[in-house]
């Protein structure tokens, strides 16, 4: 049947038949805001509620009414109104899920209405900047209601439990929390997934999304090893044709890897249009602190928006190590004057660094294991180990 031309009655009957036969995926398309039936004028009747009511089984009638009202509001470009209807639609789906014991065929419907809710909320936010994430936050509450139903379904058997829907919802919620910058709310969600017995069974695509966000969260919390693990998984498993997603993952994976001592190759950065990092790579390699400052200034908004500005700042420590290694190689001795290091720093534009601060920088590098040796305050010298005085960074983590 052509969903783009049928009458409202035909649509209702069709949805009902699909519902009765338990075809979750088809049902989800019939109630999606992104399906072609949305273009059907007949479904935008003036009095949707009375036409549907009594014409269809509960609680499906409410879902259809709210869905069609949302479609109508979208055509009127009244996004706030559309949001309210879609929010009611999600609430009806929650009631539907609660009434369905020991079955999970309707999970695709839940995914669809939740995704649509988030998209409508995003639209409202884009049209009303002063709302400042409040609508997204309300959308998150609706998603959490779904999440609770799924997480609480622990009596059904493993293949018909609604707990299999948790990761999809968690990914949606993570997207919302990252967008409205409320990262502290992610923790309980991450815990719920990490302790789930289905952790490895979720679809690969969902796992990739999940690790991408958890990796970014670890990055914000300065846990770079965990970030590396999650983001690497996401990058390696990401579909090789989804360049946009790969670029997104690399935006975070590259600086994480750099902090851990692995510098990216130029052709990789070129391939994914991330050459902003290339100048940074060469500056860090050469211990060129002035160069790092220049790159930070030039790409400030990119680094800040991606939330990696602080990591770039921390890369200066790696640059100090590389600079001091050059001094060590040039002087060709195991006892290097603090003054030589200080002179190198000044050469690189760090004019305000005195002898005390130079010692402090070296002290931190020794403490981190990046230089093997010790400082003699009396002689104002750094005495480095005869073997492997500057161990490769990648060997430290």
């Amino acid at each position, binding site marked *: 049947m052509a969903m783009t031309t049928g009458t409202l009655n035909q649509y209702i009957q069709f949805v009902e038949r699909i519902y009765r036969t338990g075809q979750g995926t088809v049902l989800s398309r019939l109630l999606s805001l992104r399906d072609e039936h949305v273009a059907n004028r007949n479904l935008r009747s003036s009095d949707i509620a009375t036409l549907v009511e009594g014409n269809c089984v509960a609680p499906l009638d409410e879902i259809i009414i709210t869905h069609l009202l949302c479609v109508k509001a979208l055509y009127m470009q009244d996004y706030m109104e559309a949001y309210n209807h879609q929010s009611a639609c999600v609430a009806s789906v929650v009631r539907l899920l609660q009434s369905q014991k020991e079955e999970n065929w309707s999970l695709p419907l839940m995914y669809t209405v939740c995704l649509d809710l988030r998209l409508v909320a995003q639209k409202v936010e884009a049209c009303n900047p*002063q709302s400042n994430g*409040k609508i997204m936050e309300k959308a998150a509450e609706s998603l959490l209601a779904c999440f609770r139903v799924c997480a609480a379904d622990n009596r059904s058997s493993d293949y018909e439990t609604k707990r299999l829907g948790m990761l999809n919802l968690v990914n949606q919620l993570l997207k919302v929390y990252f967008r409205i910058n409320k990262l502290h709310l992610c923790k309980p969600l991450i815990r719920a997934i990490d302790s789930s017995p289905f952790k490895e069974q979720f679809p690969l695509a969902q796992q990739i999304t999940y690790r991408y966000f958890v990796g970014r969260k670890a990055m914000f919390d300065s846990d770079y090893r965990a970030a590396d693990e999650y983001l690497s998984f996401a990058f390696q498993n990401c579909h090789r044709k989804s360049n946009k997603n790969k670029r997104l993952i690399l935006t975070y994976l590259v600086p994480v890897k750099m902090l851990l001592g692995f510098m990216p190759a130029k052709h990789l950065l070129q391939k994914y249009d991330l050459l902003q990092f290339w100048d940074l790579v060469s500056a860090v390699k050469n211990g060129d602190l002035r160069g790092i400052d220049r790159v930070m200034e030039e790409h400030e908004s990119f680094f800040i928006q991606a939330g990696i500005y602080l990591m770039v700042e*921390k890369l200066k420590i790696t640059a100090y190590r590389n600079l001091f290694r050059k001094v060590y190689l040039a002087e060709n001795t195991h006892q290097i004057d603090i003054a030589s290091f200080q002179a190198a720093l000044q050469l690189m534009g760090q004019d305000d660094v005195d002898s*005390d601060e130079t010692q402090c920088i070296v*002290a*931190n590098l020794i403490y981190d294991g990046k230089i093997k040796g010790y400082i003699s305050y009396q002689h104002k010298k750094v005495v480095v180990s005869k073997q492997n005085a500057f161990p490769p960074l990648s060997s430290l983590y």
Partner: protein
Amino acid sequence: MSSYFDYFCVNIYTNCAARNDIIHGTCNSMCPQSEQNLREKEGLVHILEVLGSERKLVKCYSRSAADSNMAVPNLLRPYNVLRDTVDYLLLDVTRRVDVPISSVYDFVNDRLRAVRQDMTIQRLPPEQCVNLLEPMIRFYVYFGYKLCEHPLSDYDPVLNKKYLLECIKWFLSCYESVQLWENNAKINEISSFLSNLEINNRYMKKLTCDRELMESLYILCNLGDVHPLYRYFNLPKDIKSNSTVQLSYKIAIAHLKGNYARVCSMLDALCPLTYFAVSVYLPTIQRNALRVMSHAYNSRQLAVPTAVLRQWLWFPSDADVITVCEHYGLQAEGATVRFSKADFKTEVATHEPKKLLLHEETLKMDLENIFTYKIQK
């Protein structure tokens, strides 16, 4: 965090629903009549509420419980009364010297909590909240420093930090409602115009609202934490370029990189409140520095002069250097400290902060000034 959280939830709600169910307080004194009667009768008047023959009661904090209805207009004080209450508590009560300073702190803290409770219940708009919260933040920062040497039975630094963060986060979240803020510029103008008109102004100095100072304090009160820095990146340009905010950011970045030498060299330039905020954090900076140095200067023969450590790590005296080094298991002999990574005890608790009176004298700050000064724009 509770009242901040309540406020936040309420705010989401009110922004969407009509604001017609808001309670407006009608209590025009600092303490509701019913509470005054009760406390007079039961002998619950605090010594700081007795002024010679006169009594000046201020509403106490009481936990909200399921059986008590706190949303009663005649128990709640409207904005202007709350404002006077905060003025009175900070500019008058804190000057009392006949009572131990820790009791003054307990009293004012309790009454300020009651103020915040009234703010929450009445859902005061953000432009009013900031004016009440700003002086409270100063109070918690100042007393956090002033009382840092007191025993735990007198003063609890953890609770103080909790209240401080509650106020500061609430304050900053008020500024996040961008649109409200444009209106606020006008509100500030009007209110300063009105306060200039006030003839019988009780105080020579008025409490102010200094956002730049608060942004700086937020960074410095959370030195080990990266989240204030993420906030800093997204601040409006004019605030980001303020010299105090910049200095605070630089200190936090140096601290992030473990650069204790740079952190300590910048402390001199701080204004009093930002200095107080860092000084309670100083023991942690010193501890981390000594741990790093015990690896870097690790040697059986060599040592570092105490005078150098005093200067590097902002210790008040050589004797303090020795006490603290010994606290962490390092050997201090005469005028030098011997560093050894095996000696450094990582398991001992961080040493207690000390008031650096020498520096305080150079600040020449009286109490009134602490609560009212503005930083350079």
